[in-house]
């Protein structure tokens, strides 16, 4: 029997869209390629030889952005709670302590209280006090959710407000690396989303990490009668007379539906539609990353949650020219959120910008040796940033752009998707819609809001049958 909607991908956006459609009686099936959910924000585990049992790891999620306090209204997170009928308490959020933007000339701290960043800017850049206040006002008054907006360069727009290039680079660094599909710049609407979600609202970590969020979504989806199939990889999107009518799976099975929502990316979706529908193939984004995960025998001595490290006065946000770029990194300390255990092992994650092509071309033995080289570089950086942290290393894991490609389905291991976005979710194929990264809302909260708003717009608001 035909479905009302097929959703490709059980990541944050697919699950959120599924909940909305199932909640209002639509017959929905989510097709997930892997045996676990999450997409770009998923998880895995490794045996713990020291203590028996396993160590759980998250991929993707460093932090949940868009933190709100219980009862706060009118924010992206509060909209999401209402739309998915979830409660704030369900997330068991632990707010960050503070994070640091670490450049050679200066450091800026920020926390979930915007006043900290303001006072840091006033102290280090007293001549930019008014400019920074003006920037905050521009951001506050900008309607980033307007689906009709086109691309606007953030650097061009910021140059008219922030005169000090160092301050501009420092403010941009975390926002670029936490969400820009474009090299060295980002769309201004996305800058505003990121500025609000990182600097106005801030970071938190759900207890248990990404697993908690995924369980909440999957339970809510099942409660509303939604169907979720794992190990179901979509090979083709079927069309008739220019309209999407269903999908064909790798195993040959065909499913039909009146609406198809794809979270696998715009280029990846276009590749699965017969030629002629998309006038041009959407471009694949080049930004991809390498992450080293270290488990030490004790918790970090520094109390920062995330350090955005850069060793120059300008911030280069572009694919590494040689495998990986150790000139900048995101160093994430997932133990440093408030009200977490202080005993036990400590985890440090170091993320570098990478070059997909070079990693994809490595033969196996060279690949492993290159990963060891990355781990050594990341360890040296941890020593440099936290010189007093004298813990013993117990476990190391490194994932590369090819790992990301294998697990997320995103071509070339791109993390923030295509540089071509479809803000209203429409594609040249009728009844085929894009949700998630390539619709253009960012982060975990953004991905869920993308699924919600596209399901609302294209799946629920149409005239009743």
């Amino acid at each position, binding site marked *: 029997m035909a479905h009302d909607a097929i959703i490709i991908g059980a990541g944050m956006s697919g699950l959120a869209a599924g909940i909305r459609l199932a*909640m*209002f*009686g639509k017959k929905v099936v989510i097709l997930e390629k892997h045996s676990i959910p999450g997409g770009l924000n998923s998880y895995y585990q490794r045996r713990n030889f020291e203590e028996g049992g396993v160590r759980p790891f998250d991929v993707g999620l460093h932090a949940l952005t868009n933190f709100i306090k219980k*009862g706060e*209204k*009118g924010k992206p997170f*509060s*909209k999401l709670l*209402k*739309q998915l*009928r979830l*409660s704030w308490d369900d997330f068991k959020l632990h707010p960050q302590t503070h994070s640091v933007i670490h450049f050679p000339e200066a450091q800026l701290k920020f926390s979930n209280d915007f006043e900290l960043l303001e006072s840091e800017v006033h102290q280090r850049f007293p001549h930019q006090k008014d400019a920074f206040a003006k920037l905050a006002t521009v951001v506050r008054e900008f309607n980033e959710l307007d689906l009709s907006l086109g691309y606007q360069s953030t650097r061009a727009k910021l140059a008219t407000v922030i005169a000090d290039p160092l301050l501009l680079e420092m403010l941009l660094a975390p926002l670029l690396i936490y969400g820009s599909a474009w090299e060295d710049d980002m769309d201004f609407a996305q800058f505003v989303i990121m500025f609000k979600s990182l600097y106005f609202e801030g970071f938190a970590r759900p207890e248990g990490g990404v697993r908690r969020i995924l369980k909440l979504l999957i339970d809510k989806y099942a409660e509303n009668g939604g169907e979720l199939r794992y190990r179901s990889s979509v090979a083709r999107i079927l069309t008739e007379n220019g309209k999407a009518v269903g999908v064909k799976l790798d195993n040959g099975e065909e499913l039909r539906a009146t609406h198809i929502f794809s979270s696998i990316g715009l280029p990846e979706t276009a590749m699965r539609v017969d030629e002629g529908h998309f006038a041009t193939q959407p471009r694949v984004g080049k930004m991809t990353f390498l992450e080293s995960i270290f488990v030490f025998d004790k918790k970090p001595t520094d109390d920062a949650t995330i350090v955005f490290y850069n060793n120059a006065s300008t911030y280069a946000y572009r694919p590494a020219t040689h495998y990986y770029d150790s000139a900048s990194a995101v160093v994430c300390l997932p133990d440093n959120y408030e009200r977490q255990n202080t005993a036990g092992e400590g985890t440090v994650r170091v993320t570098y910008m990478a070059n997909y092509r070079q990693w994809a071309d490595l033969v196996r033995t060279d690949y492993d040796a290159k990963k060891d080289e990355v781990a050594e570089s990341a360890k040296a950086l941890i020593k440099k940033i936290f010189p007093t942290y004298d813990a013993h290393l117990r476990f190391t894991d490194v994932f590369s752009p090819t790992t990301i490609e294998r697990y997320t389905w995103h071509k070339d291991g791109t993390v923030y998707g295509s540089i071509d976005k479809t803000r209203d979710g429409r594609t040249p194929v009728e009844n085929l819609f894009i949700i998630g990264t390539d619709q253009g809302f960012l982060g975990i909260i953004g991905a869920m809001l993308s699924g*919600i*708003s596209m399901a*609302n717009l294209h799946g*629920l*608001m149409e*005239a*009743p049958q």
Partner: protein
Amino acid sequence: MNQEQVRQVVLNIISDIAPDEDMTVLKDEVSLREQLDLDSMDFLDIVMELRKRHKVEVPAEDYPKLATMASCVSYLTPKMQ
């Protein structure tokens, strides 16, 4: 349903959508948006819940008629006979 029952139907739906809102102080003649933390996504939910629970269809061009509690009641009562 009479007008009082229709009012209760709308109240029930809003309290399910926005459980943190205090509905006891709601003024019927004042815009719901001004008094409660409701956005366009929440209004869609009111419409969807009316369809799901009471089989009442509210076409998009009639959404403005849901602006206040009083206008909801006068618009919906004839539809819920």
